[in-house]
């Protein structure tokens, strides 16, 4: 059996581990257009900040490829999948044959169609290590930085840059920061905290044109920049599957074994769509844990195993300037507001189930909440009043509790 994996990040590494739970010896070839040993994408903001050194960027120990008998083709871009010949064609003209193929091509930064943006100077994105290196190279202590996008990437970039320069302005079309994970009130709570660090926000506004080093916003306001960072979103890299005739919506379509509609071809990670168990909708869940778990399931099935991935849902743990937040599930249904002065907390219930939560500040043991959502535990089986106080195993009855304490699956 010959396995080929296009990608070298969380989904790809998950796939290697998945394959090796079943098939210890067949060849695995990892192909990535990035030249690096597998590293952690989310660490680029920590690296920018100087809190993570080069040698701590790596996602696995340095013997990972050897131990797992992987051949790597790094700095090589796959241009095409030849389904009939079961091989991938690389940009240097060479080909690699496969029996089972994983496409874990991730996503690319989306650069919005703003007049003058595409040929403006000092414009950067922030998604991989090389882009972070370019930003670090460009920024000086007195740089005026404008970040387009107040999402997870834009704000993490701001945190990293804050260590280097002082003048940072974040612009977003939405009326709040972190619109993908927080409600308005929660976003205001976090914005207040980040604002204390001197970072400025321009919300409900967007760039209409860029000329020279000036950004004109739709409101008429103008911002002058030395470094402009575009972090408005990402687009899944679906081209290889699309060109080969596979099903693609916004992301690559897979079944719950991570198989695409193409024979012998699987997909995992940020390039795919996931089935969100909280809302019952297919959506892009560009989250590292999701990518790893999809990749692992893909690997198991590629190696002849039989395992499905049925627990995808939105979930995030992130912090800015010492303020931590954990969110999971859907912000739908009956909302129970449990915020106090120093901590923010909302829980959402619907149809007798715990659907989602937002915790900002106090985040201890949040995983107990996450597991109740993931497992769709009926709320009439647990002590819901205790649940609202804090995540704890005492919410379960004695039998369920003892099973949990005895177990550890």
């Amino acid at each position: 059996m010959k396995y080929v994996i296009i990608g070298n990040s969380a989904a790809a590494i998950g796939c290697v581990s998945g394959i090796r739970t079943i098939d210890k010896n067949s060849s695995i070839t990892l192909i990535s257009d990035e030249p690096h040993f597998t590293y952690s994408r989310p660490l680029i903001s920590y690296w920018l900040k100087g809190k993570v050194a080069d040698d701590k960027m790596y996602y696995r120990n340095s013997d990972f490829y050897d131990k797992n008998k992987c051949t790597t083709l790094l700095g090589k871009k796959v241009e095409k999948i030849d389904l009939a010949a079961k091989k991938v064609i690389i940009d240097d003209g060479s080909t690699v044959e496969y029996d089972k193929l994983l496409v874990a091509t991730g996503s690319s930064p989306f650069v919005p169609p703003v007049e003058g943006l595409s040929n403006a100077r000092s414009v950067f994105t922030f998604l991989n290590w090389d882009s972070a290196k370019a930003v670090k190279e460009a920024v000086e202590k007195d740089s005026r930085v404008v970040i387009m996008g107040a999402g997870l990437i834009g704000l993490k970039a701001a945190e990293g840059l804050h260590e280097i320069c002082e003048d940072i302005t974040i612009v977003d079309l939405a009326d709040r920061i972190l619109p993908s994970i927080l409600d308005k009130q929660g976003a205001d709570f976090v914005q207040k905290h980040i604002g204390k660090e001197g970072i400025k926000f321009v919300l409900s506004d967007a760039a209409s044109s860029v000329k020279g080093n000036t950004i004109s916003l739709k409101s008429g306001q103008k911002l002058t920049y030395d470094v402009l960072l575009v972090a408005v979103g990402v687009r899944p890299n679906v081209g290889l599957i699309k060109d080969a005739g596979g099903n693609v919506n916004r992301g690559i379509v897979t079944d719950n074994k991570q198989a695409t509609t193409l024979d012998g071809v699987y997909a995992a990670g940020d390039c795919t769509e996931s089935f969100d168990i909280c809302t019952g909708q297919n959506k892009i869940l560009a989250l590292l844990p999701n990518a790893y778990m999809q990749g692992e399931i893909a690997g198991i099935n590629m190696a002849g195993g039989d395992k499905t991935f049925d627990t995808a849902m939105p979930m995030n743990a992130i912090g800015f300037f010492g303020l931590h937040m954990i969110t999971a599930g859907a912000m739908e249904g009956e909302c129970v507001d449990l915020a106090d002065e120093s901590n923010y907390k909302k829980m959402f219930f619907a149809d007798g189930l715990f659907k989602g939560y937002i915790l900002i500040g106090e985040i201890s043991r949040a995983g107990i909440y996450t597991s109740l959502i993931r497992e769709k535990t009926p709320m009439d089986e647990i002590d819901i009043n205790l649940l609202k106080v804090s995540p704890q195993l005492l919410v379960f009855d004695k039998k369920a509790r003892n099973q949990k304490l005895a177990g550890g699956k």
Partner: protein
Amino acid sequence: MRKIYVNEDRCLGCHLCEYYCAFAHSGKKDMVKAFSSESKPQPRLTIEEGDSINFAVSCRHCETPLCVKACITGAMQIDEEGRVFVDESRCVGCYTCILVCPYGSVIPGKEKAIKKCDLCIESGKPACAENCPNLAIVYEER
């Protein structure tokens, strides 16, 4: 693999496990000195206390640990024996492990890295079980 198991019917709620856990990871030889130092040592377990029921919760060292799969840096790992451990030098304190652990067993650290039960790997004798006065915590193979 031997793991830590708790029996809530035997737990007195005395918190000794918590203190001995913190002491065992304090790097100090003297308990009094450990707890009078400025950086109070931190336990790697949580005690839950109800009206008439108490018990300690520590890492279950899961067979397929979600924390290891979800870890964004690769700091959380599983060793050849099946023990789940954190390489603190690679943990940035993002708390994704806290987001996914179904037992609430991963604890935010006072410093950057998270804290969790390491089964007292150095001594081989988990301090919580060694010092539980009523056999509510045991370290055994099941």
